[in-house]
């Protein structure tokens, strides 16, 4: 063994230190320094190693380093790049990523050290539960308010709904969430302020999803209520509604059986767009309420510079959005059978 091969590592801790020390030990260096054990390589390691290389070079005299420190850190960086497959050309890497993604393999997470697909499927149920319940509540609130406003056109109720909708568009969902938490969790202590204990106890699980769902739905229903109102007003002007009124049908029956079904096409268009907004809205809401869904995962991954995970998650969200739009296109045919004949 060669003489003088001693590396002092100071200030290098955690994953990066472990990686560096392991590498140096293998190369026959004697490593000194305080280092915790845990070894997964990720992008952050490369950045940190590069920074430490600079620091080590700056303090060369003080640290009494072996002259090969330069080459040795470069070696470490290079080995790490090879391990993460970063030396391949970008197009090749992208091509392989797409091919693998098609069969459900999104690669390894840099920070968790497990397959990304596993991370996603663990958390997907939370996000979908939140998105679907948020959308259902949105539709219930919006249809009730919108039809109610149209039925009371130019009266107090109508103005109230329009005011609510104008306000709802201007209020950020995360602020509304904070206000709800302050009122229902901090002051009244009816509901938990955040977090999710898992599905083992369904009552607590549902309880901790109430505030996030309401926050999502209230903001979204503001837009939808307005669309419902104007669409319903259009239909209410038509002759067959007057006929129905003249035939003595009850107001409620006219509104829900005759007005609503015929007003549905623009409503469904907006619902499709809103489902996309709700799904991305869960990213924000999950971070407000500390819910363990895809939205939380994407932020943890950004903080860890865990690119494969972020890449897969962005892909997931885009797929969900496009699928929602596709389903809406199919729904048109169900709502308005005349469209089928035209095709």
């Amino acid at each position, binding site marked *: 063994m060669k003489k003088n091969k001693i590396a002092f590592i100071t200030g290098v801790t955690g994953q990066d230190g472990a990686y560096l020390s392991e590498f140096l030990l293998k190369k026959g260096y004697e490593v000194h320094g305080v280092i915790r054990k845990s070894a997964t390589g990720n992008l952050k390691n490369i950045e940190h190693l590069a920074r430490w290389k600079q620091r080590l070079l700056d303090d060369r005299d003080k640290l009494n380093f072996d002259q090969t420190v330069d080459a040795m850190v470069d070696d470490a960086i290079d080995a790490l790049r090879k391990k993460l497959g970063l030396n391949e050309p970008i197009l090749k890497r992208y091509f392989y990523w797409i091919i693998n993604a098609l069969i459900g393999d999104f690669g390894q997470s840099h920070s968790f050290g497990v397959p990304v697909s596993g991370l996603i499927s663990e958390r997907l149920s939370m996000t979908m539960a939140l998105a679907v319940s948020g959308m259902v509540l949105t539709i219930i609130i919006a249809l009730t308010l919108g039809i109610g406003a149209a039925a009371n056109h130019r009266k107090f109720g109508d103005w109230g709904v329009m005011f609510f909708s104008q306000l709802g*568009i*201007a209020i950020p969902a995360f602020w509304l969430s904070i*206000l709800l938490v302050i009122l229902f969790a901090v002051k009244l202590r009816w509901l938990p302020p955040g977090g999710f204990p898992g599905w083992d106890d369904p009552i607590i699980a549902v309880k901790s999803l109430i505030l996030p769902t309401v926050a999502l739905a209230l903001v979204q229903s503001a837009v939808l209520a307005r669309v419902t109102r104007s669409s319903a007003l259009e239909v209410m002007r038509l002759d067959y509604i007057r006929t129905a009124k003249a035939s003595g049908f009850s107001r409620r029956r006219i509104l829900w059986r005759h007005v609503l079904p015929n007003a549905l096409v623009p409503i469904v268009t907006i619902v499709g767009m809103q489902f*996309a907004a709700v799904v991305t809205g869960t990213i*924000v809401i999950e971070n407000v309420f500390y819910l363990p869904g895809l939205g939380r995962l994407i932020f943890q991954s950004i903080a860890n510079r865990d690119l494969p995970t972020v890449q897969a998650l962005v892909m997931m969200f*885009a797929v969900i959005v496009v699928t929602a739009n596709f389903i809406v296109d199919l729904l048109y045919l169900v709502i308005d059978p005349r469209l089928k004949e035209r095709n």
Partner: protein
Amino acid sequence: MKKLPLNLIIGTVLVSIVLGTAFLSLIWTPHNYALMNISDKFHHPNYIYLLGTDQLGRDVLSQLMAASRNSMIVALVAVLLGGSIGTLLGLLASAIGGWVEDLVMRVADIGFAFPALLFAIMLAAVFGPSLTNAVFAIAFINIPIFARISRASGNQIWTRDFVLASRAAGVGRVVITFNHILPNILAPIIVQATIEFAVAILAEAALSYLGLGAQPPAPSWGRMLSEAQTLMYLAPQLAIYPGICIMIAVLGFGLLGDGLRDITDPRLAKVR
């Protein structure tokens, strides 16, 4: 003179308040917004600190004022950038037509399918979170919106007789676009820009709240809210003010945009 629509009046008032505050903060705030007086932390509103102080003893009112400036600049740059690129693309599409038009519109469709938040997250993941990346992300979502509007209105103008006359006189497409098409589609574009301004303010607040926008110590309504959230039990009042500011700004620009549209396009106003 016709009676002005109510939303235009309210919108103008709110926008003037926000813009006025933003300009005022350039020359005067009650205190230095970044100055920390730890001994004065969590003050309730009083004569010295009109809206109280936060966990580090910084004056809340001064922070809110400075943040309004930040918010306005982000929204302005993002809408100007995205709006001008989008409008140019739309004008190009309607001037050339054919496969260029198809290409621009299909690319715009893809842009529509891509939520702004995801784009901002991607930028943050690759380049690290910063205000510049937030601006780019917000600008990016504006491109397809403006491309669509300017192409649709541009195509209408291209069919008009005075454009035909210019073409017959041998004027080129570029000159027609800038002399006739652009001035005639400015109204819907300005209306849309006002509405998108409101959306941009909301987006900036959300991104800053998530830590993808303004970085400390730059003042931002969104970030003030995320800081206040951790102090909900101690000082819930801190979570109220920034949200009200966002609401006023978004409401103002939204109503102003709606009002402008009602004036410039009365057909739409009648439906509502």
